[in-house]
């Protein structure tokens, strides 16, 4: 077994994971059984882009699936691709863009695997029109320690299909996935951005643009207070109708090592956020940009998670139903601004009502707020518990893919179908997250 250990993106909580890398589908079953026999349980680990403990095995021994990076079949007539679960979204785009196909749904980083995208049923800037990633999955192969491989689809083994989408890796190891892609004429994006001065203006902009554009998202200055509370930049865009079909290859910057303490503190944060807001002209801006800076601005700096230092950081992401969204987001931002913590980029996004097949899918019709916090105690615990009460009272919920703090009570309340997932869980698979929110 390799001595290098893996962690989650937030590097908190610190449970170093020993990795058993798997390179061939034919070796999955043996590896799975060996790990379970040796350590009691295991969990698939894709590319570790989940922030908290949902990608960490409760035994601390994961089955690393990134080596399963083969394509199996590509139908460019119909935009249907079948690929192994360890293929990353970046690798898929590299192949599909020149053929005129894009991901139907993409999260804010292209360095996640197909398996990870299914297991967290990820969403993107077009949730209001296309729903989650799982809505576009045609079928996949699932390997369990207690059964032979099964092909799951909305028609076959639909209970396992639904439980695996957003199933947090607990229903089995996905060996391959077949996905319906989205046709594009160009890899360029017609991108527009405009400033808004407070939260009410965000809701107006969202109402105005969501119905007309494929992609919408907003960045907000989480430290602005008073009449500026919730000010930010609203960004919307669409695939350009003409132009190149080119894969973008930009030289990447990197954070080469982890500093002993976080470089993010309230001073650097306030300065950055203020500059970022004011740098944007007050008027509507338009640009024709490549897909990479539009969808994946953070990917331009590899290992950016290291700037938070050795203690790591947590992301807080919640979604609030439409009816209570404005008031609850207002209350959340007040709590955050009052303590002066938070991140460079707080992201606000309206989610739509396209239903996902996933049992434990996170989004619901309403508004999602996401932001990062350096790992500081007791600050995070007290702040998060105040924020959790706001989310709970507003009928919202938290996103397991980002979570390192949700209480067991909250989880069961947010995801009442958790017991159906528990009954379909592969007894040999368990995460630190699942142990924390259901078994503890």
């Amino acid at each position, binding site marked *: *077994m*390799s*001595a*290098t250990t893996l962690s989650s993106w937030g590097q908190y909580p610190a449970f170093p994971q020993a990795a058993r*890398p798997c*390179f*061939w*589908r*034919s070796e999955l079953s043996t590896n799975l059984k060996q790990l379970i026999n040796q350590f009691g349980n295991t969990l698939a680990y894709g590319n570790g882009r989940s922030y908290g403990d949902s990608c960490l095995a409760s035994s601390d021994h994961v089955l690393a699936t990134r*080596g399963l990076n*083969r*394509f*199996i*079949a*590509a139908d460019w007539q119909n935009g249907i*691709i079948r*690929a192994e679960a360890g293929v990353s979204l970046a690798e898929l785009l590299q*192949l599909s863009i020149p053929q005129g196909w894009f991901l139907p749904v993409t999260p804010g980083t292209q360095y996640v695997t197909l398996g990870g995208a299914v297991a967290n049923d990820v969403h993107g800037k077009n949730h209001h029109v296309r729903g989650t990633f799982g809505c576009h999955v045609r079928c996949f192969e699932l390997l369990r320690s207690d059964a032979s491989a099964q092909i799951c689809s909305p028609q076959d083994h639909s209970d396992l299909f639904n439980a695996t989408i957003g199933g947090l890796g607990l229903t089995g190891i996905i060996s391959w996935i077949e996905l319906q892609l989205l046709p594009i004429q160009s890899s360029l994006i017609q991108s527009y951005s405009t400033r808004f001065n407070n939260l009410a203006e965000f809701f107006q902009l969202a109402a105005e643009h969501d119905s007309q554009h494929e992609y919408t998202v907003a960045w907000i200055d989480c430290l602005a207070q008073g009449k500026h509370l919730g000010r930010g930049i609203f960004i919307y865009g669409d695939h350009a109708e003409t132009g190149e079909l080119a894969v973008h290859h930009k030289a990447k910057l990197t954070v080469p090592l982890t500093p002993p303490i976080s470089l993010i503190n309230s001073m650097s944060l306030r300065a950055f956020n203020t500059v970022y807001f004011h740098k944007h002209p007050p008027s509507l801006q338009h640009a024709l940009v490549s897909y990479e800076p539009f969808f994946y601005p953070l990917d331009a700096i590899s290992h950016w998670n290291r700037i938070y230092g050795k203690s790591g950081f947590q992301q807080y992401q919640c979604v609030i139903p439409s009816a209570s969204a404005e008031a609850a987001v207002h209350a959340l931002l007040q709590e955050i601004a009052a303590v002066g913590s938070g991140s460079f980029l707080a992201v606000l996004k309206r989610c739509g009502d396209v239903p996902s097949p996933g049992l434990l899918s996170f989004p619901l019709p309403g508004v999602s707020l996401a932001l990062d916090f350096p790992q500081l105690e007791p600050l995070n615990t007290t702040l998060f518990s105040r924020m959790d009460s706001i989310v709970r009272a507003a009928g919202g919920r938290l996103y397991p893919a980002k979570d390192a703090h949700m209480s067991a009570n909250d989880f069961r309340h947010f995801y009442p179908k958790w017991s159906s997932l528990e009954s379909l869980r592969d007894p040999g698979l368990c995460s630190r997250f699942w142990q924390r929110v259901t078994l503890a």
Partner: protein
Amino acid sequence: MKKIVIIGATSAIAIACARLWAAEQSEFFLVGRHQDKLQQTSADLVARGAQAAHSYVLDLIDFQQHAAMLTQALQTLGQIDVILIAHGTLPDQHQCEQDVHYALQEFNNNALSVLALLTPVANHMAQQGFGTIAVISSVAGDRGRGSNYLYGSAKAAVTTFCEGLRARMFKVGVHVLTIKPGFVATPMTADLNLPAKLTVSPEVVAKDIVQAIAKRKDVLYTPWFWAWIMKIIIHIPRGIFKKLKL
């Protein structure tokens, strides 16, 4: 569009090279010892743009079958623009010290099977009068280390053989490339505790290999810093070298 033969085509390094060539719509003849892995590799390359990827199952230790395999490759592809020889295993040095049979079997697989195969390959390439023979050796062949000298001596044999072959092939227009990777994260090294800072992905090495073939380089250290590391290691005096724990 190139016609490419890959020996040990299920190697992670070879696959990473093949993916770069697949993007240029090359046609492949893939040789390996496991049918299912070959089939998966072939499907992957076709999805990535390969013109075609034919599989041929052969355990390279079976020297008798090399010629038949080569004939089949030529029948399938018509000509060979590049032949990449990538198969190999990393023996357990301790076991080699205790078990002669095992040691020789490993030497056979890493050295003799390569020399055996290169013999008919070289004759065909000489007759063809163009193309590249690229062979994956290793930095481990540059010096015999206490921890790894069976593998090292097998790679040294390959390196020296290729150097001589290059001199012969140069005169008939055939390019011979000796590839010496450092630490690469592949199934072969998955169980080892490699130094993270010196270890690269197969994709990094593959880029160098594909470029070295295009530029008709003689010897490639990959990544580049291994050329410097090995310059130093080669010059460590024997009296000191034998005391080191390498």
